[in-house]
């Protein structure tokens, strides 16, 4: 058994990153032992990951920068082929050998995937034959073994297959007889262009349908201007080719269709008022070819905001509008983008307001987290069957029963966007966020009529899926649309003991139609070692992946059982795992709350989850906000989710170039990450908190005037405007540095976080303070009290 010490951050920085100045010291790991020396180590030196940390005494547990994902304990020549942790991550990087060992460790086993992530380097292979295992249909990958030149052994089912003749020739190096040098066997992430056997119907074109709410409420918010302007700007960048189609539906108490047939002088509106039995007024020309009818589409987009200016309609027939959208898109499949600003009141799927404002701050159970009606779920299933995905944009100030409406997206592989209290005048920061998100939404890569299958080595099996899709079969997911911002999670169990196996592999294969009508298969393969001791399992634990998976599991539990059950389950997860560590792994018993170094952030993250909008009790939380937070926990990939769970706090009034990164000739300062506690704030400084969807810049009362003038452009503290959301672009070195830093933070995620500059008396100060997880509030424990509570429970 190889025992390689861990503690290094992921080996290679992406190209373009060079460290400047004095590098900050992360976890100081010991030198990597070569395999031949490993046998001599005899456990005389505990790996860095298992270094015992007494959480009650060590205060500074956060690393200097980002938390690095753990590296699996594989030999170097295999590890360099392993899939990037940004795409494929496992909660335990060393897989237990038996289910009983996994149960003893009390840690969840699961995978977190981001399969369609935008990748800068993706090898694409066009091949007439795609080599797959004959029994389990696994794609050939870097972790198969070649028995001789003509045969290969599958790493998932161990069947020996023949290497086809065409595969022996390597087109990259123009050599023959070296199948292991081919790109399919050299990279863990690869994309195949599928040959015709994979196309059983002609690939569908890109079809986009926009369903817009035009009731009085909607026009009041002013969102129509933003949507139409954004579409006009990005019409040429919508992913697609010459076959791309587009269509529009607007609705209030009736449904309006737009005839955009080529040859008409202007778009023609057709109104259907029979919402009980929706029909499509004309058989074609409601969804038109974009390149042929571009002028008409542009005319419609320019006219749409004014058309409903004087409307007095207050009802909203969302259900019938969705049925109409489904009927329109059924023949081809595609994407429907639905914009809604109020509770649907008419027709099928009408909803009532179920939220009780007095229950918002309830310390006990939260009601109404489940859908009120089956209508949206059933419609989502119908859409999924016809390869239609529905994305929902909710821009409303009042309760909209997102728990019911969200179902239309959850089961049709769509996404939910939420802009609470959106208004073009009263809430300009939301407007900016909406504009930027819309631009990304319209121009990002998209895949149609997709299915995804996740395979694992014989002995492991997948038992629960988390994310937005329909589970068609025990390992097959139906995704009418796949987009680069969606994350998925699965939970696994060990059906048969993994004896005689050194490694197990996982493969995620995503078959989709690209927007240009090509059928493609994206394959990711990951390999992990098998271990049979508890200490090795703990050494390989990935604390962020465990937190992400537990969050998804807790969301499921709050919906099927109750929120209190979910909260208890989260606390018990950390109690059980630390208790097991203490009793079974630790050799010397000490006082205090002991945790291995790799899990030292676990109680902090669990406390952060308990205080997150999705799970908190005792603090007033609107029901829609809570439900949206739950959806984000299940939908967002892990790297975008972590700042939402545990915001990152930096001090920014004294940024230096020490340890800065140099990307594309810009110097990005790397300030130290601080604990989320008010004792780290100081009146003399300015602090930046990155909370995922929003970035706060807190200015202390006695902040240095040089920072204020050179970065914010104001002479003193009292001149800082109340609702500042933009940074002036000044020529000073501090301003350049600061804007580079914020730009770098923003680039790391596909949605646009709004910047809020907060003074001490600002209205947003409570939101900022709610993110101070380590502090006590009237309804929740402080971090230290939480640790004491854990210690008390463990030593029972």
């Amino acid at each position, binding site marked *: 058994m190889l025992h390689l010490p861990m503690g290094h951050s992921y080996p290679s920085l992406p190209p373009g990153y060079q460290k400047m100045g004095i590098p900050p010291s992360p976890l100081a790991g010991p030198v990597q032992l070569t395999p031949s020396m490993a046998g001599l180590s005899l456990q005389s030196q505990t790996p860095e990951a298992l270094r015992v940390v007494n959480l009650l005494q060590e205060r500074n547990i956060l690393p200097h920068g980002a938390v690095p994902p753990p590296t699996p304990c594989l030999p170097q020549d295999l590890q360099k082929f392993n899939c990037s942790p940004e795409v494929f991550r496992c909660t335990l990087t060393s897989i237990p050998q038996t289910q009983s060992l996994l149960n003893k460790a009390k840690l969840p086993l699961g995978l977190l995937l981001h399969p369609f992530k935008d990748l800068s380097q993706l090898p694409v292979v066009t091949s007439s034959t795609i080599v797959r295992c004959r029994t389990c249909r696994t794609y050939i990958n870097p972790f198969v073994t070649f028995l001789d030149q003509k045969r290969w052994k599958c790493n998932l089912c161990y069947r020996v297959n023949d290497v086809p003749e065409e595969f022996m020739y390597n087109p990259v190096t123009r050599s023959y007889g070296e199948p292991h040098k081919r790109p399919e066997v050299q990279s863990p992430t690869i994309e195949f262009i599928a040959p015709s056997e994979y196309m059983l119907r002609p690939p*569908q074109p890109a079809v986009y349908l926009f369903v817009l709410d035009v009731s009085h409420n909607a026009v009041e918010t002013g969102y129509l201007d933003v949507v139409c302007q954004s579409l006009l700007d990005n019409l040429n960048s919508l992913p697609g080719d010459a076959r791309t189609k587009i269509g529009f539906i607007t609705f209030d108490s009736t449904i309006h269709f737009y005839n955009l047939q080529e040859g008409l002088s202007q778009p023609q509106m057709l109104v259907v008022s029979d919402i009980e039995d929706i029909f499509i007024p004309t058989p074609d020309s409601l969804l038109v070819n974009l390149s042929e009818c571009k002028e008409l589409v542009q005319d419609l987009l320019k006219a749409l905001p004014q058309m409903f200016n004087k409307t007095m309609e207050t009802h909203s027939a969302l259900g019938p509008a969705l049925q109409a959208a489904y009927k329109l898109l059924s023949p081809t499949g595609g994407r429907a983008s639905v914009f809604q600003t109020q509770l649907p009141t008419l027709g099928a799927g009408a909803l009532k307001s179920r939220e009780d404002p007095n229950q918002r701050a309830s310390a006990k159970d939260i009601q109404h987290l489940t859908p*009120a009606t089956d209508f949206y779920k059933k419609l989502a*299933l119908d859409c999924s*069957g016809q390869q239609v995905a529905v994305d929902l944009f909710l821009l409303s100030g009042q309760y909209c029963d997102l728990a019911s409406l969200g179902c239309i997206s959850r089961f049709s592989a769509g996404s939910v966007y939420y802009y609470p209290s959106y208004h073009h005048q009263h809430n300009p920061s939301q407007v900016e966020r909406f504009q930027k998100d819309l631009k990304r939404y319209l121009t990002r890569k998209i895949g149609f009529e997709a*299915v995804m299958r996740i395979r694992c080595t014989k002995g492991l099996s997948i038992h629960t899926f988390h994310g937005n899709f*329909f*589970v068609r079969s*025990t390992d097959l997911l139906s995704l009418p649309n796949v987009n680069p911002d969606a994350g998925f999670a699965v939970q696994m169990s060990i059906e048969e003991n993994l004896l005689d196996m050194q490694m197990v592999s996982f493969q995620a294969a995503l078959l989709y139609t690209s927007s240009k009508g090509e059928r493609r298969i994206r394959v990711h393969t990951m390999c992990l070692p098998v271990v049979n001791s508890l200490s090795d399992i703990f050494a390989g634990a990935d604390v962020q992946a465990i937190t992400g998976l537990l969050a998804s599991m807790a969301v499921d539990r709050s919906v099927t059982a109750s929120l209190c059950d979910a909260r208890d389950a989260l606390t018990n997860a950390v109690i059980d795992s630390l208790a097991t560590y203490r009793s079974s792994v630790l050799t010397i018993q000490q006082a205090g709350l002991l945790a291995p170094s790799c899990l030292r952030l676990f109680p902090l993250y669990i406390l952060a989850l308990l205080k997150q909008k999705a799970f908190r009790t005792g603090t007033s939380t609107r029901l829609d906000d809570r439900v949206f937070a739950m959806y984000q926990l299940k939908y967002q990939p892990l790297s975008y989710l972590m700042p939402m769970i545990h915001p990152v706090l930096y001090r920014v009034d004294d940024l230096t170039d020490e340890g800065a990164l140099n990307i594309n000739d810009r110097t990005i300062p790397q300030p130290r990450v601080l604990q989320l506690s008010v004792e780290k704030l100081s009146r003399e400084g300015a602090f930046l908190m990155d909370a995922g969807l929003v970035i706060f810049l807190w200015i202390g009362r006695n902040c240095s005037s040089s920072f204020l003038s050179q970065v914010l452009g104001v002479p003193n503290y009292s001149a800082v405007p109340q609702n500042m959301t933009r940074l002036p672009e000044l020529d000073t070195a501090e301003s350049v540095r600061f804007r580079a830093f914020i730009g770098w933070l923003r680039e790391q995620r596909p949605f646009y976080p709004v910047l809020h500059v907060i003074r001490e008396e600002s209205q947003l100060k409570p939101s900022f303070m709610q993110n101070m997880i380590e502090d006590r509030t009237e309804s929740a424990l402080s971090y230290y009290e939480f640790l004491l509570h854990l210690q008390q429970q463990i030593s029972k």
Partner: protein
Amino acid sequence: MAFTFAAFCYMLTLVLCAALIFFVIWQIIAFDELCTDFKNPIDQSNPTRARERILNVERICNLLRRLVVPEYSIHGLFCLMFMCAGEWVTLGLNIPLLLYHLWRYFHRPADGSEVMYDPVSIMNADILNYCQKESWCKLGFYLLSFFYYLYSMVYALVSF
């Protein structure tokens, strides 16, 4: 031959137990049908099959749902009859299953009109395995009770 009320109860439960066994076997076959998607993996990736598959899953879930209430009510009827006939041993053997049914019925996901077997979550292997195990256990229990009722009926008829 004493044709007591107890004997009559046992005769009736014998016949209805056959119906319960039939329901459970129907459930087992339905779960098996859910598990087998189209055999050919290339067929599974065919987009036109998606609609058929979803309709199939929904159809099977509807079927399963329709079997639930009759099964529970027949078993509830058994317990009622045994209570009226004074057959305490038999009643005691059936009480655990009655409590289990009550728990299942009231603990179902509160999701609109569905009693249970939700098409969106049924294909998760943990729920599917649980339902399959439940069906097999019930089949064993109903088979054993069938023979137990048969014996008890003869005993009730023969004894004075």
